[in-house]
């Protein structure tokens, strides 16, 4: 499959919480049309989504507050349909239509 404009996409929602929304133009929820496959034709997974978000939605120069070494930075939880991504396969989880992916920064204040 080529990266043509007609490449199929997966409709999902992406949420940012716990302060991460500040990195994404202070918007908490995005409707995202995610390319269904990555450059190698493999089904879009969480890794690919994170990469996609950095390329298309990140409005802040401080990308390292979201991603470190191409992985989500420590201290950010990833929730797939409100379940910890560790229950779903982490970065390898293949995105399904209408999935909700939530990125939430863990808090320490009190």
């Amino acid at each position, binding site marked *: 499959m080529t990266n043509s404009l007609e490449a199929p996409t997966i409709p999902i929602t992406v949420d940012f*919480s*716990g302060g991460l929304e500040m990195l994404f133009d202070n918007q908490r929820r995005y409707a995202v049309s995610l390319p269904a496959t990555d450059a190698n034709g493999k089904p879009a997974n969480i890794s690919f989504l994170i990469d996609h978000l950095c390329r298309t939605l990140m409005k802040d120069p401080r990308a390292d507050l979201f991603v470190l070494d191409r992985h989500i930075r420590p201290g950010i*939880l990833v929730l797939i349909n409100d379940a910890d991504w560790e*229950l779903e396969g982490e970065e390898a989880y293949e995105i399904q239509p209408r999935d909700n992916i939530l990125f939430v920064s863990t808090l*320490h*204040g*009190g």
Partner: protein
Amino acid sequence: HDGCGRRLSDGEFDRYSRQMIVPGMGKEGQLRLINSRLLIIGAGGLGCPAGQYIAGAGVGTIGIVDSDVVETSNLHRQVGHATARIGMKKVDSLITHLRGLNPLPTYIPHPFHITSSNAADIISQYDLVMDCTDNPATRYLISDICVLLCKPLVSAASVQKSGQLIVLNCPPAPQGLVDGKYPPCYRCCFRKPPPAGSMISCGEAGIMGPVVGMMGVAQAGEAIKILASALHVPSQDSLERNLLQPTLLIYTYDLESAVGPYSFRALKMGGRKKNCFACGENSTLTLSGIKAGSPNYEQFCSVPTSSCKL
């Protein structure tokens, strides 16, 4: 031996009658509260409202740990202090308020930092711990000690317009027990701390009073139910109750719109992890090791203890 056979005094009955008639509480639940010992670590934005409802409900022994003194900038959210007590140790100020609300509990001040050296000695005196602190190093330390001493931990945090709450290690299970469904510890859920500098510090981020207040009251609610229902007592029965669905509650406050569908979200977390550094099957974590300085929590978190007390 748990004191649950005794009678309530007239004063106790008067004071607690409205919660004793709640189905599931009763005299039995009230006596369990009266016979419980609860530790609040942090007398700030979480600890103040939490302490009010813990004291009000009649938990018999309430310890409070904090080394700070009350400052003016605390008072928009630290509602257990007062302008006249600015400069007083927070533990003494909060106990003054709580004793005014309910003189019946025994209040124990611990007016110093909780550290690797003293944490086990303090926590071992209590049945349940509430983490109302403000920095990751202390949060990992408290959780590790709770794992080793088999204490349930009700943990909350709040910054700016967000709050989080999770009940950990409840019902408690011995370190290393992983064949089956056991509840997670703080490290199971939050394996690595954020790198230094990536945290939005509370000093620069600020905090809305009702946001941290909601989390503190919610902590009290979880602690009261655990003690009153004996969910902290390890048993097959308590393990079967649905604490086995560990939930991280997140609260998002929006200054621009009213409460809505995403204000609260209940996130499903995993159970105890086999490879958890603290509670997992090959854990080398020990009380004596912690006391001797291993692990080094400050180094693990790579950040100095936050200087902003919420």
